């Protein structure tokens, strides 16, 4: 491949690629993103290839490995073009049927279509599925169409035309102005106006300048950066090159978490291909602008996602944050002006350049433009990635798109923004979601994780979970965060283990105040959000734990006992055989009961029982075993 040296050549290449492709040629696309791979999609690709070979169709039908469309719960996902039929939960044994029916005869395999659990209706196209109906997919739209390892797929759908426009029809100042006008705010969760950040770096004294992609999404429960990077790495790269040109940087870095191996691999391939096509390196598209990108992998530290810590890690040192008296935009990597943006922020740039700031501003709310990708996970029926305009209400997100709570249970709270965010209770479900509204509630947007919890989640236990998570991840550089988290963790663990005392809550509030004010970086400063929102909205649960030693959600192990209801027990021996501690006493035709001394409270019996005979008790005495210790015979 000869490097492309003018915008006209790029257009010519695009036409050539499209001419080579017949739009009517059947094409089977399979998701090979982490979520579907975990459910066996690699075997599926092999099965399709083998089946086509068997039927002698290898030349007539294409098999494409693509990115993720977000509905991981229903994976592995397969799409058949040109009809664009979506099949879900496909297994290798379904492959022959798909090829002979759908590909060859244009017939639909009913059982593989998405079926609405409530109405029982099947959906042939994506828009008929409730999960997709309310979405507006700007960043995720192309994931099902392109092979991320093939630059020509991206060029075919109009890729790199934004770059050509930016390099040849706009000045750097015009680009920054356009980004400022679009009101794009940092998609990593802070919500800082991107255009202003770019301008700061551009005007900062000092050369060279750097641009950095943050794909160190350590937030537990969020995975949209991975999905964008895995499914469409060129969109991130294109945004980065445009940004580098606007800011005046000639060297860029992509920092990817070690836990996202496919993302690191795909962006590395994308960089190599872009260099080969003359879209990276020296004299890009013949414009005279040169720019190089390197990939750096993280090594497993949550705090490395903080901008100054990430830059320290790229320098090859331990990724600890530094005090930011001067913004990293002015003094960052190797003390030079460095512009760091989240993966999704960079991927949005080509769209703004192509369609204009006005178009982007018309999506979303006044204060927060555009769309946001949320990872809707936890106890909802439809879990996956959802891209919606900003300003959608939490209720619509959880009930219309997410399909409500699993197993018909009651909604309790939704946690947004990872460990820096907070819990939002039912009374605020009609809040429109954008940067400012969530901050008002004591939570934050964060990277868009939305973890839905039902009545089985204990809010004290969840607060403890986040504090323990952060205690594990705190770098230990500053005292308020290191010692504050340790003290908090001790108190919270005591409360959950039934050793809570009066005054514990006040102690936590005191600690929180210091941590909020005095921690070095955002990890410590926002660490108290989950605890404070849990206290604010669910204080009664805390008090129950401390005063009555009771956990109403029945989640805190130390405060519950498992008990078998002799009325419901059918003496089926299932739990008796599987109990790892041998605590279930009884036998064939003999009602079982649990020896509380032996019970390790692992929950195996609770999960296994098909009759609902195993129950959790909290804060109440355990009824004695039936008839003392002598098991009774079940009446037939």
């Amino acid at each position, binding site marked *: 491949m000869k490097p492309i040296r003018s915008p006209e050549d790029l257009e010519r290449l695009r036409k050539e690629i499209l001419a080579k492709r017949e739009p009517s040629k059947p094409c089977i696309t399979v998701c090979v993103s*982490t979520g579907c791979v975990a459910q066996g999609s690699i075997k599926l690709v092999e099965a399709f290839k083998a089946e086509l070979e068997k039927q002698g169709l290898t030349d007539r039908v294409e098999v494409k490995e693509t990115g993720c469309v977000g509905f991981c719960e229903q994976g592995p996902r397969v799409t058949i073009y040109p009809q664009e039929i979506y099949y879900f939960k496909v297994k290798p044994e379904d492959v022959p049927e798909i090829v002979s029916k759908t590909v060859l005869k244009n017939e639909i395999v009913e059982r593989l279509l998405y079926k609405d659990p409530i109405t029982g209706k099947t959906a042939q196209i994506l828009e008929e599925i409730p999960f997709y109906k309310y979405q507006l997919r700007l960043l995720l739209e192309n994931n099902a169409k392109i092979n991320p390892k093939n630059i020509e797929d991206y060029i075919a759908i109009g890729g790199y035309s934004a770059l050509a426009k930016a390099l040849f029809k706009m000045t750097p100042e015009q680009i920054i102005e356009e980004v400022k006008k679009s009101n794009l705010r940092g998609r990593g969760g802070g919500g800082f106006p991107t255009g202003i950040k770019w301008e700061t770096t551009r005007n900062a004294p000092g050369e060279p300048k750097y641009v950095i992609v943050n794909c160190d999404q350590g937030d*537990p429960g969020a995975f949209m950066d991975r999905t964008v990077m895995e499914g469409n790495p060129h969109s991130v790269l294109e945004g980065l090159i445009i940004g580098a040109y606007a800011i005046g940087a000639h060297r860029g870095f992509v920092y990817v978490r070690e836990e996202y*191996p496919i993302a690191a691999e795909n962006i590395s391939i994308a960089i190599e291909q872009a260099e080969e096509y003359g879209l990276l390196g020296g004299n890009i598209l013949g414009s005279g602008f040169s720019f190089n990108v390197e990939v750096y992998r993280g*090594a*497993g530290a949550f705090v490395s996602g903080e901008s100054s810590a990430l830059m320290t890690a790229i320098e090859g*040192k331990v990724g600890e944050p530094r005090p930011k008296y001067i913004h990293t935009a002015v003094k960052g990597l190797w003390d030079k002006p460095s512009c760091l943006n989240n993966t999704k922020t960079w991927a949005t740039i080509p769209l703004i350049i192509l369609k204009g700031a006005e178009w982007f501003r018309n999506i979303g709310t006044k204060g927060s433009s555009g769309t946001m990708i949320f990872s809707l996970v936890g106890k909802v029926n439809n879990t996956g990635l959802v891209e919606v305009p900003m300003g959608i209400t939490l209720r619509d997100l959880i009930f219309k798109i997410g399909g409500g709570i699993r197993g018909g249970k009651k909604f309790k709270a939704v946690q947004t923004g990872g460990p820096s965010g907070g819990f939002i209770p039912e009374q605020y479900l009609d809040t429109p979601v954008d940067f400012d509204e969530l901050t008002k509630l004591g939570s934050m947007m964060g990277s868009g994780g939305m*973890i839905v*919890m039902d009545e089985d989640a204990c809010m004290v236990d969840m607060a403890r979970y986040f504090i323990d998570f952060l205690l594990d991840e705190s770098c230990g550089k500053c005292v308020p965060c290191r010692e504050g988290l340790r003290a908090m963790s001790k108190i919270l663990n005591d409360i959950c283990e039934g050793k809570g005392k009066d005054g514990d809550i006040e102690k936590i509030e005191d600690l929180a105040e210091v941590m909020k004010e005095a921690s070095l970086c955002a990890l410590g400063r926002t660490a108290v959000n989950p605890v404070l929102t849990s206290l604010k909205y669910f204080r009664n649960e805390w008090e129950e734990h401390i005063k009555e030693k009771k956990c109403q959600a029945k989640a805190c192990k130390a405060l519950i006992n498992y008990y078998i209801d002799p009325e419901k027990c059918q003496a089926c021996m299932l739990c008796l055989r599987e109990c790892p501690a041998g605590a279930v006493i009884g036998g064939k035709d003999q009602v079982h009961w649990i020896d509380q001394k032996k019970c390790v409270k*692992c929950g195996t019996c609770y999960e296994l029982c098909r009759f609902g005979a195993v129950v959790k008790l909290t804060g109440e005495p355990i009824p004695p075993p039936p008839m003392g210790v002598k098991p009774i015979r079940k009446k037939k």
Partner: protein
Amino acid sequence: MEALRYAEAIKQIRQRGQAIKLIVQELRDVDAIVDKHKSDRSRLIQILLDVQKKYGWLPKLALIWISERLNVSMAQIYSIATFYKAFSLIPRGRHTIRVCMGTSCKVRGAPELLNNLQRILGIEPGQTTPDGKFTLTTVNCLGCCAISPVLTIDGEYYGHLKLTDVKKILAKYN
């Protein structure tokens, strides 16, 4: 008698020869990795990641050699190796289990899953079973939250797990 001593000496020389061969091989491997990263000091973490991937842990000799090659202190190398979760300074088992403890997995029962694994294997997270078969570790989010709870063994994913699945999965490995 003399012949016996002679045979013993030969045996010892052979053993030492083997050990030296291994050392030389290890240094060559590390050299190749350092060269791949152009001996760039800012790529230290990347180099350590590659060594970790090759051996499953960071052998001391490799670290000393990296310190020599890049001219960085052992203290800096150790500070990195102990700060990040991806690195291990002791050999790991034949199979590494990573249990995801992200929020979504937590809400859907990951702690119980981990307890179950600990009971079956008889080890705590971070430890290796005495027979050297499994190393148990936790990870704070693997980013496949939609199919939680999740664990991986040697990079192979298992999702939508139930407590009773663990035994069956472990039985697949030897």
